[in-house]
């Protein structure tokens, strides 16, 4: 504690992390992992692939999904099922996630939750891309785009356009088809001042133009 004051009913306590020896990381407990698995949707299976505890995380995600289903917590169910799918994908399983994500899609529709439905399409597209089903991946990205346009969720739309543009340009060798999407993403970034997406949008567009120029 580096300073502070006290009054009749309050006390100020101040710390400065430069004055405190940092503590080593503490492993997350099962209950903390359960909370994360039912509240925060993972999206990056590559990032998770090197974790040594994937089996444990998969088991907890499945438990959380069952618990959420039992209590009728559809949001928790969607999150846990989605995480289970991403964790399986991180383990190199490209079949299991499709079944789980089909279930997530059904729950998203049951809950009439378009935002979660669009996220399901994005997760499905990632699995399809990893399997090499690129046309299906493009279709799923397009489905997500439609939802984001309808909801006027511009930031999500830009991210979806960037994903579909990258698929077309980099994986399918169709930079000419990708460029209008990436130009739209860039235009939206500037119009809506989404400055945090400017770098990625500019980079994707320049890359596609470079591929087209040969």
């Amino acid at each position, binding site marked *: 504690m580096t300073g502070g004051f006290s009054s009749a009913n309050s006390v*100020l*306590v*101040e710390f400065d992390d430069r004055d405190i020896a*940092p503590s080593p990381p503490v492993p*997350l407990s099962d209950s*903390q992992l359960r909370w994360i698995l039912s509240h925060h949707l993972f999206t990056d299976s590559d*990032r998770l692939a090197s974790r040594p505890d994937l089996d444990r995380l998969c088991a907890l995600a499945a438990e959380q999904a069952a618990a959420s289903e039992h209590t009728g917590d559809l949001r928790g169910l969607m999150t846990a099922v989605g995480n289970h799918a991403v964790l399986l994908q991180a383990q190199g399983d490209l079949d299991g996630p499709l079944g789980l994500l089909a279930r997530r899609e059904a729950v998203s529709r049951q809950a009439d939750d378009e935002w979660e439905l669009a996220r399901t399409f994005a997760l499905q597209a990632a699995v399809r891309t990893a399997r090499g089903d690129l046309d299906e991946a493009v279709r799923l990205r397009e489905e997500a785009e439609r939802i984001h346009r309808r909801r006027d969720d511009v930031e999500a739309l830009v991210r979806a356009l960037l994903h579909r543009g990258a698929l077309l340009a980099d994986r399918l060798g169709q930079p000419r088809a990708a460029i209008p999407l990436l130009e739209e993403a860039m235009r939206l970034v500037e119009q809506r001042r989404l*400055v*945090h997406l400017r770098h990625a949008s500019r980079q994707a567009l320049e890359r596609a133009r470079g591929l087209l120029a040969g």
Partner: protein
Amino acid sequence: MAQPPMVLGLTLCEEVVADPESGHVSILRVFNRLPVMTFPSVAPRFCVYAALTDAEGVLPLDLVVRTGDSFLEEVHRVPTPVRFLGRLIVVHYTLRLRACPIPEPGDYTFTLEHAGDWLAHRSLEVVLAEEEDP
């Protein structure tokens, strides 16, 4: 085991200014997006503020920063023992962060913990500074 305090909000801001005479505390320039010049790096100085109450005695609180797509990766843990003088007393908890590692752009969570219990969370989006308007 000691009862954990009630957290009346967890805030990230540029500065917390206290007036000892009046007892007023001002939380200045609250934000939820932080531009950083390069990665990996150390975050520019900022504050974590929380109002805490309904606890007694000295409680070991940790402020923990996590990141990664999954928030499973802990990048900074600061032990901050706080003395509570009575259950009705409000503790204005202020931690100035000057040594918080920021390995990459993305989402971070700031969690106030007591004995493994999560008391409050706050998220922060870290972006490349050159993406911000001048």
